[in-house]
């Protein structure tokens, strides 16, 4: 990677170099990793919420084992430090205080600086354990459903929607197994609250190719109220959303698709040597080519000479 070798101090080991390459900015970025951070004081609800959301996010998530006394809205420096150390750009911070009971701070970073932060109060929570149903496999890419006019009209909610998509969209995938679509996350903005529900998908027969969808709730279920926000200015946000220019796709030579959708390829052959062509074997035709005969003779004499030298 060019950017790694542009460092003044070169990495000393191959492992260190590889590590830096993983972290280096890329055209096609890695999946965003989320940090789950417990604040100085957390209630049972918040601890459980963090734990269960961590499970939902798991392959791309880091959970912090210890308490971290910080206030993201007053001082972002420790969040940014953690982001740098863990190479992660999403965070969910949970705390509990008298002034802000059951508090979650959902945020994301751009270039290791805080871009957006939204404070969400958990007003209602039902754990996964409260739903005695079969759960989904870990790391399943969820289907996201957003409902409610607020997500379209209100600026704060629009940004929150974008953050939630960013946070929960799972691993980037080109190919998806149809049977693997088994998780739905629903976000509803209604009545001044944002309701998060999580369902398992059950595919039923419908008489056609497309199945009939039935859902069973698996939890966690959260009711959230939006408290403080710290959103990026439009200028910074635009800068962060900038898309790299894509280079021209490599021209595929000699392959065409015809009108019927069949793939046609042109193959360039070298001129065939007919003298080496194997025809039907017959006893009568069995004879060595003159050049072959000479070679055979040479080989014989050569093999005999070294032995003579040895003796």
């Amino acid at each position, binding site marked *: 990677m060019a950017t790694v070798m*542009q460092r*003044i101090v070169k990495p000393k080991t191959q492992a260190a170099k590889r590590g830096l390459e993983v972290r*280096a*900015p*890329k*055209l096609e*970025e890695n999946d965003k990793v989320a940090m789950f951070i417990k604040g100085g004081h957390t209630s049972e609800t918040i601890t459980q919420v963090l734990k269960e959301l961590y499970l939902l996010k798991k392959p791309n998530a880091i959970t912090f084992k210890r308490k971290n006394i910080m206030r993201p809205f*007053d001082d*972002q*420096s420790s969040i*940014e*430090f953690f982001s740098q150390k863990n190479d992660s*750009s999403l965070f969910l911070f949970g705390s509990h205080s*008298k002034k802000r009971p059951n508090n979650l701070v959902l945020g994301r970073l*751009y270039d*290791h*600086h*805080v871009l957006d932060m939204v404070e969400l109060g958990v007003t209602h929570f039902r754990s996964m354990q409260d739903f005695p149903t079969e759960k989904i496999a870990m790391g399943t*890419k*969820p*289907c*996201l*459903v*957003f*409902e*409610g*006019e607020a*997500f*379209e009209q209100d600026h704060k909610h629009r940004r929150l929607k974008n953050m939630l*998509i*960013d946070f929960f*969209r799972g691993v980037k995938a*080109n*190919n*998806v*197994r*149809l049977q*693997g*679509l088994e998780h*739905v996350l*629903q976000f*509803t903005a*209604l*009545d001044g609250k944002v*309701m998060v529900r999580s369902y398992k*998908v059950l595919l*039923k027969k*419908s008489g056609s190719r*497309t*199945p009939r*969808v*039935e*859902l069973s709730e698996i939890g966690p279920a959260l009711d959230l109220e939006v408290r403080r926000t710290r959103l990026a*200015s439009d*200028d*910074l946000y635009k800068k*962060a*959303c*900038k898309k*790299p220019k894509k280079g021209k796709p490599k021209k595929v030579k000699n392959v065409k698709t015809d009108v019927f959708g069949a793939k046609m390829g042109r193959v360039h052959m070298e001129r065939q040597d007919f003298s080496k062509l194997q025809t039907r074997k017959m006893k009568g035709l069995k004879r060595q080519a003159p050049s072959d005969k000479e070679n055979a003779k040479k080989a014989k004499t050569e093999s005999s000479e070294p032995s003579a030298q040895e003796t």
Partner: protein
Amino acid sequence: MATVEDVLESVNRSQASKYKTIEVQKDVEPQLDLGNLLTVDQNPLELKKFRADKEAYLKSQARDNTQLLFNAIWKLPTERVEEAICVKLPETTTVLPREKPIPKVKPPTRWEQYAQLKGIQKRKKGRMVWDEEIKEWRPRWGYKRANDETKDWVIEVPGNADPNEDQFEKRMKAKKERVAKNELQRLRNIARATRSKVPGVGLTPTEKPSKEEVGLALHLAKKSTASLGKFTEKLPKEKEAKHVGKKRKFEPAIGDFKKEKEQQLNIIDVMENKKPKLDITKAVNRVISQQEQEPSDERRKRGVKVKNRRGPPRKKGSGGFGKKGKAGKGKGAKGMGGKGKGKMGKGKGKSR
């Protein structure tokens, strides 16, 4: 023909009645982003139904929207990958911010520029090389490399060489110098790429230095003192080194008034003519985004400084440093204190 159609329709109907429908009616078609498996439903929600039975209403909404999403997904082209039916998802349409800025293209090195100018193409070299002595294929470089001259146990002393010179040491030294030169070139390329000052090569050791090189070496040696050569004694009959270092020239304090006037007027002219264009919106945006990024940076820096400052005041007792540190801390404490007071006030009110 009509009979066949009738039969088919009746079959369809009977099948449809057996299973629940997959069709969903919505006033406004929800926006789908299949790349992210995302549905955004803008239809107004019914508050009455919601208040009557919250969970059931949410579930039915989720089901309908998921059904719509699945209907669209099942229409995508499928392919078989290891016994599983997979769907190829299209590109995502939702714009999400990046994690890190777009990497800049690495500017070409000095050599790459030269090679391009001359049309020199890169050749792929094989990793393994045939070692004639060991009769074995070995890596071109690194551990146990082929044709490793540093592993020679004997070296012929060249005819014209000093017999007391250590040929092994000479070889090692030459190698080290080549490595150092390469490193220097690498750093210069980086410096050029980042538009920082390119370090000069300085004096390279040469076997037979020219007169100019000796002069330069002398000049540098004389200047390499703590006082930049101010007190270095001159040799008798020593001449000033030529073409090394620039001397600033000043105009006389009193003298040519005409020239002085001209110069001052010139400055005013330049100031008037070259007014930079100020795009206010752009400038404001830049300031805002800078401010957003700055406070956290500053805070971090300040935090480090405060830590460092803790040491000296204790030793010195009270000094300029201590005062500064306190002032810095005081600011932070003020902000926090204000909030703290508010909290306390609330607490008191409740207890009463």
